[in-house]
């Protein structure tokens, strides 16, 4: 069922009244960005897909805590980031390589093939460097740079003091800077 004209808040209200198809529409709207969060944090497609599903299941269970005054997208993406961080802290060694079988979309329009290739490689290098960060650093980078969360929002999402968020971000960027920029001037 397609409900392109219906606002997220209306869909959330329908879900709360028992309309499961409305939740399906929310999943379809945000599965790309939620999967993106999981993939950037985990670096592996299958695990990212599993965690994206878990995030939507968790979102469904906790939908009564969602405040309709705010957009649904950032909320469900932060649920996903938190799940990924928990998984990373629980049982995963640091992953450096990205599984690229599924490919990436966008970012290549209007450039020569060589330029596209170079840009893709540079982006690849950045993503690999982010994946090499410790889990909590990786997550604060994801939330700040790719989810546009403020320091306060990151602190609330990860249950960290604001000072920890600032120091994690600072150290994460310093590590990225050393890795990405020192060797190319």
């Amino acid at each position, binding site marked *: 069922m397609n409900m392109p004209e219906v606002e997220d808040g209306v869909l959330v209200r329908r879900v709360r009244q028992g309309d499961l198809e409305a939740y399906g529409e929310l*999943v379809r709207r945000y599965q790309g960005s939620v999967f993106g969060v999981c993939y950037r944090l985990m670096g592996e497609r299958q695990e990212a897909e599993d965690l994206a599903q878990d995030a939507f299941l968790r979102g469904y269970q906790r939908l009564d805590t969602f405040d309709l005054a705010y957009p649904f997208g950032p909320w469900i993406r932060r649920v996903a980031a*938190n799940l990924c961080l928990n998984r990373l802290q629980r049982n995963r060694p640091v992953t450096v390589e990205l599984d690229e079988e599924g490919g*990436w979309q966008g970012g290549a329009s209007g450039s020569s093939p060589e330029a596209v290739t170079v840009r893709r490689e540079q982006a690849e290098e950045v993503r690999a460097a982010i994946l090499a960060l410790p889990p909590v650093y990786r997550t604060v980078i994801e939330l700040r740079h790719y989810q546009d969360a403020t320091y306060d929002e990151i602190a609330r999402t990860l249950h960290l003091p604001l000072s920890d968020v600032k120091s994690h971000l600072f150290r994460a960027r310093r590590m990225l800077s050393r890795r990405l920029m020192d060797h190319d001037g």
Partner: protein
Amino acid sequence: MTVDGSWHLADDALQALLDHALDPTSEAEAHAHLAACSDCRHRQRRWARLFAEMERARLDPVAPDIAGAVLMQIRARQSSTRAVRGLLFGELALALAAVAAMGLGGWRALGPLALLPRLPDVGQLVAQWVAGVAALARPVLAWPQPLALRSSMLEIRLPSLELPLVGWAALLGGALIVGLIGNSLLLRSEPRAEAAGGSSNGR
């Protein structure tokens, strides 16, 4: 604003400036300092370049369609929850029936109802059936008695578990009710708050 000993902007302040996380006064001071300090401008450009590199890596991967799988899992969980609830209500009904049957049987035997004419009584039938099962099970239930350990040095005798039939019924009913309450609490509980970030979305 954090400024190090040589009156340059510290790196964390430069990052906060790029994050637009400084208060207006500090931000104005930072801009004024950057206008006058080439060293800080150089470091600021390095951080800005890193931010730009990360922005270029923002591209989302090609995502699979997971909507169907998510809805299927939600439906499966809902139906299994309903099934378990049905089972629990069945347990409760069984427990209550057992206790009621035993109580009715005892009352009929000892109370004023014993004087009334006997009609077909399901409760009594159940009570007789439970009594029969209990009689069969009695040797098993009294297992501790023959399990005394003997030796020349010491003797250990385990306590007897013998209870009157009504006691066993009450014990059984109570255990079922406790199990029922425990299971329903488990059903209502959720896994550890992994997605606690999702519990509140206020900004």
